[in-house]
């Protein structure tokens, strides 16, 4: 079973190269940020597969990555508002 999980982890990791290409080519900042988000979710998947193939103690890393997955995106959208202190959903800042 662990051979199968390592195979899946390898293919999943390889597919993240596509996300790297999107970070590289953009064109908008939102595109780059989204691609980073995809690497984050893909990373959670790879950690879980590694844990299933080897040692379940690794799963705490997946929990932490999933917990913090949206933090970079939140910091990004905040940084796009005036002085970095607004809300993109607020029409005064949008």
């Amino acid at each position, binding site marked *: 079973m662990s051979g199968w999980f*390592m195979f899946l982890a*390898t293919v999943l990791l390889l597919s993240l190269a596509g996300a790297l290409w999107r970070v590289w080519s953009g064109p908008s900042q939102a595109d780059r940020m989204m*691609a980073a988000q995809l690497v984050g979710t893909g990373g959670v998947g790879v950690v879980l597969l*590694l844990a299933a193939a080897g040692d379940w103690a690794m799963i705490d*890393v997946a929990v932490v990555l999933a917990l913090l997955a949206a933090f970079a995106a939140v910091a990004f959208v905040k940084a796009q508002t005036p002085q970095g*202190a607004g809300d993109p*959903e607020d029409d005064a800042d949008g």
Partner: protein
Amino acid sequence: MTLAFDLVLCAMIVGAAICAAVAGTIFAAAVFFIVYGIFVSLAWLRLDAFDVALAEAAMGAGLTGILLLRALGRMPASEDRPGPALAPALAGAGLALALGWAFLALPESAGLGPVVRNAAPGAGAENPVTAVLLAFRAWDTLLETIVLLAALLGVWALSRDEAWGLPPGLPQRVRPDGVLAGFGRILPPIGAVVGVYLVWAGTSRPGGAFQGGTVLAAVALLVSMAGLAQAPRVTSGALRLVLVAGPLVFLGMAFIGAVLSLWQPGAAFLALPEAHAKSLILGIELMLTLSIAVTLAALVAGPPEDRA
């Protein structure tokens, strides 16, 4: 199959690193650096260093991303086109070569792993990494927590005179019923539980004060970014007490050891008495977690500012 995985992972790490170095805009470089952190965290897992993987995941995904993207938002747009960073790239490549040479020149040895594993039970922590950090190498850890504090003093020193005494960063404005406010309400309770769990687990499994503290710091920053709570003023006595509590308790324990050594053989500065080592380590870890979390959050939040 594991060899194929490791090769792909190495290629992704090197690829992300090179892209971060040569990316056309600083924003792209910052995003590549965040992505690079996720890959490096996977590499630590493959090297069986779960504690380091946890720290890298919490630091890279949580704090570094917030820090870089916030700093970028404050930069004038004209500075978004860096020139080629040839000198740093050459210096980095040189360092990598030197490290590679040093690694290959090392004599074959089993390392310190077996020694630490044999001595760890008496030191009060079953997790060998915690034993090293808080017992065998306590001196380093103590100084590191003080370095963090010194860094915060440096950041606070950047504040303008008129802003001194205000809370760190700018007051945040958020649509009360928006997604950001909702996200900021749902996540912190779960995040706090995960952070405390990592500290508690740290004595026997991967985790510890630094990993838990980093998660808690990221959660505190989310609460602040979602505008749900105002950070305390930098002049607040309670804030300053929490900042120094961890190093102070650590140092206090160290001095108790030094005093005990006057009439007890075996006791020494920074040596925890073996009978109580486990509960003492847990106590020190909890205080350190609190101080590390607040210090890191304050570091990322930046110096106090007014809307001038």
